[in-house]
């Protein structure tokens, strides 16, 4: 291949490439540098670069519970999004008919208000004196002093709500292309609805499931607003720790180290997931 023929490819990559370099690569490298600064530095005295790799084990030793909790909550929210999102996306793509666009707008509508306001609204929904808690107490699913707010349930519920559209839209995109004739063929071959769903619909939705899972899990693992507004001291996530380290404790090396640990942990999980689920999904499509 000659240089002149590959030039258009480079030109097309240029805008996104510059964007990524400016707003991801450069800050990420700086952040990595910060994570290796002398932990004894301060704002007044400055931070010297001492290649202090010890910041990593120190940060992990102090905050591994919050890290594991973040991954756990994010996984729980992702599963909840999938369970809620799959039937919803299926209904919109296959059954909604002329309501399809209205329903799609309804899925995206919450994005028109701020993330913070949406999460604060959940304080009202889950309030101890609210309808939901009252109902759950009446049917004895909650004790008389039981509550939903300030529990792990509230944090996972908030994450699920906030990231649900990220699951629904990719699922919709793959289900929308579902060829009705395949479902008919499946029925002709004596598959019941359950078997058709499991053997035909689900495999065809697999690329959407993989994309939706990633789009939900990755931001949920780094979120700190839901834990702050709906949680309790025992539900702090790694994002809360990074926030406090950067803004309140002014411990920049530790904050940067924790950010990188989170990034690495998520990356490892994503790669492992893609190797299993991603390959399997693509195989099944064929």
């Amino acid at each position, binding site marked *: 291949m000659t240089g002149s023929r590959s030039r258009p*490819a*480079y030109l097309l990559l240029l805008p996104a490439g510059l964007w990524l370099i400016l707003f991801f690569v450069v800050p990420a490298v700086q952040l990595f*540098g910060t994570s290796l600064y002398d932990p004894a530095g*301060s704002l007044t005295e*400055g931070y010297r670069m001492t290649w202090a790799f010890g910041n990593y084990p120190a940060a992990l030793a102090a905050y591994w519970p919050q890290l594991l909790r973040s991954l756990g909550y994010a996984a729980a929210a992702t599963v909840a999004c999938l369970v809620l999102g799959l039937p919803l996306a299926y209904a919109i793509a296959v059954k909604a008919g002329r309501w399809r666009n209205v329903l799609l707008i309804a899925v995206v509508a919450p994005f028109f208000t701020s993330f913070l306001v949406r999460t604060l609204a959940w304080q009202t929904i889950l*309030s*101890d*004196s609210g309808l939901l808690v009252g109902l759950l107490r009446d049917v004895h699913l909650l004790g008389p002093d039981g509550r939903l707010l300030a529990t792990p349930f509230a944090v996972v519920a908030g994450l699920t709500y906030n990231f649900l559209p990220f699951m629904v839209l990719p699922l919709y995109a793959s289900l929308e292309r579902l060829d009705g004739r395949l479902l008919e063929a499946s029925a002709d071959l004596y598959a019941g609805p359950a078997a058709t769903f499991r053997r035909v619909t689900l495999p065809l939705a697999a690329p959407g499931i993989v994309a939706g899972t990633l789009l939900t899990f990755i931001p949920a693992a780094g979120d700190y607003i839901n834990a702050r507004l709906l949680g*309790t001291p025992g539900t702090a996530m790694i994002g809360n720790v990074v926030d406090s380290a950067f803004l309140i404790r002014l*411990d920049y090396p530790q904050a940067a180290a924790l950010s990188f640990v989170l990034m690495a942990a998520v990356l490892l999980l994503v790669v492992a997931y893609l190797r299993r689920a991603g390959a399997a999904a693509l195989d099944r499509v064929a």
Partner: protein
Amino acid sequence: MRRPALSPEAAAVLRAHRVSRRSALGVAGLAALAGCGIPGSRQTEASCVSVDTSAADRSLVFANWPQYIDVDDDGRPTLAEFERRTGIRVTYTEDINDNDQFFGKVQNQLADCRPTGRDIVVVTDWLVGRLVELGWVQRLDPAALPNVTGNLLPSLRRRAVDPQGDRAVPWQGGLAGLAYNGRVTGEVRTVDELLTRPDLKGRVTLLSELRDTMGLLLQARGHDPGDFTELEFDDALGTLRRAVESGQIRRFTGNDYAPELQRGDIAACIGWSGDIIQLAAENPEIRFVAPESGVILYSDDMVVPNRAAHRANAERLMNYYYDPTVAAQVAAYVNYICPVEGAQAAMDKIDPELARNPLIFPTPGLLARAAEFMPLTQPENRLYNDLFQVAIGA
């Protein structure tokens, strides 16, 4: 299906990406980017010189917190009056919502001695202490501030955060104390009740602000928040840890405790006096309690950041707001502690009931119980915040 082979175009891009001399240079550049460290960011009057253009440029940028000045249907009456009297055009912004976040927003400019675009910023006293320590705010001219010198409340003079007393002028003050919702619980009189009373379990919030929460807890253990040792801090932190572990504490909050206290999800909390007055105006069962062991007095102060170009205009505004009549107008609207002596008499003409409210014009008895939290050096700030943040879960 096998995964599709790369398209010829993509393959060409990838081939071009083998490590060349150019990309080796790139890697070296990135290493340099990572490897330089951050110099200390303290400034002095010699290292960071601010030029005042007030005489020629009759304007001023005033950055404050939301809902922290008097407003009516036409705008902001006291500010409009200032503009009319002085001919100085004020750009008033409400872009400060959180001390730590605001500090994060301006710290790069101030560390490099670059302008922040703001002539007056209002931040809480402990952050003033940090800004003064870093040399990031300008010295004010006492001769330009006769009202401030004459009328500033004595308990807000000679503060440790501003040792020379010439960098910061209080905008409003406030108290951190206890509050409870009488509809859902009986009276809460002490910090000890707040942290241990069984009927409050899971219905108590504390402030995520170290100085307010730990200040009250230190007082409850008989220690002085204005001058304590690490051992005394640990002692008070022990009571906090036990309360968190027992499930007594529901959450640590900023201002966002207000709606939850209003609804009754929170029965009792540590809160700020101004918030509680405003809540109580709608719901009289919400009450503020100044425990016998003491309350924390803080103030939000006006400072002029380095390189702000309108220091003299800023001083005129500060002086204007220390006119008791003007101060009373602001206090009648914002309901925090008015730092201006003489404003109480002026308030009597606007709203006699507010003039008697000890949370706006504190009585000598209340002020005697009020302590300021001692200013923390950078290492102390790190040490105590590390301990506190771990105790509150982050």
